C-alpha cells in the first residue's frame, strides 16, 4: 500500500521561544499542539491519533494524551532520535491510508538550555548493549560527526571551506527570520576561523542549542478538502536505520541513501524535480552527506555542490533550510526533524519569508538524520507537493 496522495499536512506550528525559562516540557507540547490545530482550523476534539517520541515526558503518549486531554484511537511513539518526527509523518500517512485515523497530531518539545538535559542525549530508559564498549571513550555528537567529516575529507578531498558554505547559506536565510538565534550573515572565513571544537569541525559548523518545539497535523483527504488552508500532500516517504554493522563500519554514506531511494520510488519523481529541500543540519557535514545520499549530486561531489552559494535561495540551484535551519535558527530539544517539516510546508504553501520563498515551489523534500551519524542513526525522507 502506498501513501501517495493519501494524506495531507494541514497544520504546522513552531514555538517562538528559544529559551523556555520556567515552562515545563509538557506545557511546550501543549502550546505547539494548540498552535498547529489552530493553523489547520481544527480543534483538539478532532484529533484521533497522537504521535510523540522520546522527548515527551513520563510515559510518552500516555502522559501527554492525559495532559492534552486527547481521546485517540491510534498512537505511535517511534523513536529514531531527531528524525522521529519525519518518521511520524510517514506513519501517520500510513495509518490514515489504512483507515485507522483521520486527524493525526505530532508534537515535539525540549529544553536543553533550561531543563538540565544534556545536548544530544535523549533520555534512555535502559542502558543500551553497546554502552560498555563505547561510552568509556567519551563519544559526543561533536566528535562522532567530526569523524564522518574527517573520513569524507580523506576519501573525497572535501575541504573545511566547502563545509563552511553550508553555514554561510543558512545564515543568509536566518537574517530574515526574527525568531532565529543567529541572524548575522557569516562568511566562509568566519566559519573556518572559528575555534575547532572537534577536528575537523569548527564552532560555526555546529547547530544552535535551543529550547522550544513544534507540531504538525496530518489529515485524511476528505478533512483537507474541508479546510481553508493551502493543501500540502504527501507523495512519498522512506525510512531506514544504519548502524555499526557488527564492526563493518563505513562512514562514506548514511541511511539517507536507502530512505531517499524508497521515497523517490514511491513518489515517482527524481531528485532533479525537487524545488526546495529541508535537510537535517546538526552539523555542516550532516547536510553534505545527505545531499549526496539523497542523490542531488554524485557521492563525493557534495563539497563542490554546496560551494559558492548553491544552497542560498534565489542564488543557488538547491535552496535549503530557508528558516535558517538548525545551524542558525532553531534545533529544539536537540532534535531538528520537526523544524525540517515545518519549513517545507511553509515553502509549499508559499508562506516562507518573501526574501527566501522559492518561486513556483510545488514539489519539495524534507529529510532527517537522527541519533549519531557514524555510530547508529535513523534517516527519514518525505516528498511533498502543493495541490
Amino acid at each position: 500500500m502506498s501513501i501517495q496522495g493519501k494524506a495531507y499536512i494541514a497544520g504546522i506550528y513552531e514555538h517562538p521561544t528559544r529559551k523556555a525559562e520556567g515552562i515545563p516540557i509538557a506545557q511546550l507540547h501543549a502550546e505547539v499542539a494548540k498552535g498547529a490545530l489552530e493553523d489547520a482550523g481544527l480543534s483538539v476534539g478532532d484529533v484521533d491519533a497522537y504521535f510523540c517520541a522520546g522527548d515527551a515526558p513520563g510515559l510518552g503518549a500516555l502522559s501527554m494524551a492525559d495532559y492534552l486531554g486527547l481521546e485517540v484511537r491510534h498512537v505511535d511513539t517511534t523513536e529514531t532520535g531527531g528524525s522521529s518526527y519525519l518518521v511520524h509523518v510517514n506513519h501517520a500517512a500510513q495509518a490514515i491510508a489504512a483507515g485507522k485515523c483521520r486527524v493525526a497530531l505530532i508534537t515535539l518539545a525540549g529544553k536543553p538550555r533550561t531543563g538540565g538535559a544534556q545536548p544530544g542525549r535523549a533520555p534512555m530508559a535502559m542502558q543500551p548493549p553497546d554502552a560498555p564498549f563505547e561510552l568509556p571513550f567519551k563519544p559526543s555528537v561533536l566528535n562522532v560527526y567530526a569523524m564522518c567529516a574527517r573520513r569524507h575529507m580523506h576519501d573525497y578531498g572535501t575541504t573545511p571551506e566547502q563545509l563552511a558554505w553550508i553555514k554561510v547559506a543558512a545564515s543568509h536565510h536566518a537574517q530574515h527570520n526574527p525568531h532565529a538565534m543567529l541572524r548575522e550573515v557569516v562568511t566562509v572565513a568566519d566559519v573556518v576561523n572559528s575555534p575547532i571544537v572537534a577536528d575537523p569541525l569548527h564552532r560555526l559548523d555546529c547547530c544552535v542549542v535551543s529550547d522550544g518545539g513544534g507540531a504538525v497535523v496530518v489529515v485524511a483527504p476528505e478533512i483537507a478538502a474541508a479546510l481553508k488552508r493551502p493543501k500540502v500532500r504527501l507523495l512519498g516517504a522512506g525510512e531506514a536505520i544504519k548502524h555499526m554493522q557488527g564492526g563493518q563500519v563505513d562512514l562514506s554514506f548514511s541511511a539517507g541513501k536507502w530512505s531517499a531511494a524508497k521515497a523517490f520510488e514511491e513518489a515517482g519523481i527524481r531528485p532533479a524535480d525537487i524545488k526546495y529541500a529541508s535537510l537535517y543540519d546538526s552539523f555542516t557535514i550532516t547536510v553534505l552527506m545527505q545531499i549526496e545520499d539523497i542523490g542531488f549530486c554524485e557521492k563525493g561531489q557534495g563539497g563542490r555542490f554546496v560551494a559558492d552559494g548553491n544552497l542560498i535561495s534565489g542564488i543557488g540551484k538547491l535552496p535549503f533550510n530557508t528558516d535558517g535551519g538548525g545551524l542558525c535558527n532553531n534545533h529544539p530539544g536537540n532534535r531538528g526533524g520537526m523544524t525540517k517539516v515545518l519549513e517545507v510546508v511553509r515553502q509549499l504553501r508559499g508562506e516562507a519569508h518573501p526574501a527566501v520563498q522559492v518561486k513556483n515551489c510545488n514539489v519539495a523534500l524534507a529529510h532527517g538524520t537522527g541519533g549519531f551519524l557514524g555510530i547508529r542513526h535513523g534517516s527519514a525522507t518525505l516528498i511533498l507537493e502543493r495541490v
Partner: protein
Amino acid sequence: MAEAKSDAFSADLALALYWEAARASRLLLKHCRDCGKTHYYPRPLCVFCMSANTDWLEAAGVGTIYSWSVERRATPPYAIAFVTLPEGPTLLTAIVDCDLDALAIGQHVTLGFETREGQPVPVFRPA
C-alpha cells in the same frame, strides 16, 4: 579495587570471558562458526546470521586508524577513533599516549588496556 564496578559488567554471563580476558589485557572478538564472520562488540548470537554457534577469537593487538577526532573543548583534550583490526571489525576506541596534532587516517596503532571507571577497556597507541 576495580572489582566493584566490573561486577556490573560480568553480571552478563555471555560476556564473562570477555571481561576476564580484558582484565588480562587481551581483546576478544566474537567469531561465528557457521558464517565464518567476526564481529564486535560481542553478542552471544552472531550479528550477521543470528547463529548461536559462536566462539571467541583473540585480536592480534594491532590496527589502523579508519577515522579520528580530537575533542578540543575537553580538559584535557582527548582523541577518539575508529580503528580497523586485521581480523575484520572496526571498533570505536581511544588513541592514547600520542601527539594529538599528529594523528592520521591509515596510521598503525597497537593495543593496550586502560581501566576507566573500574572497567578494563581496549585503547590504542601509535605503533
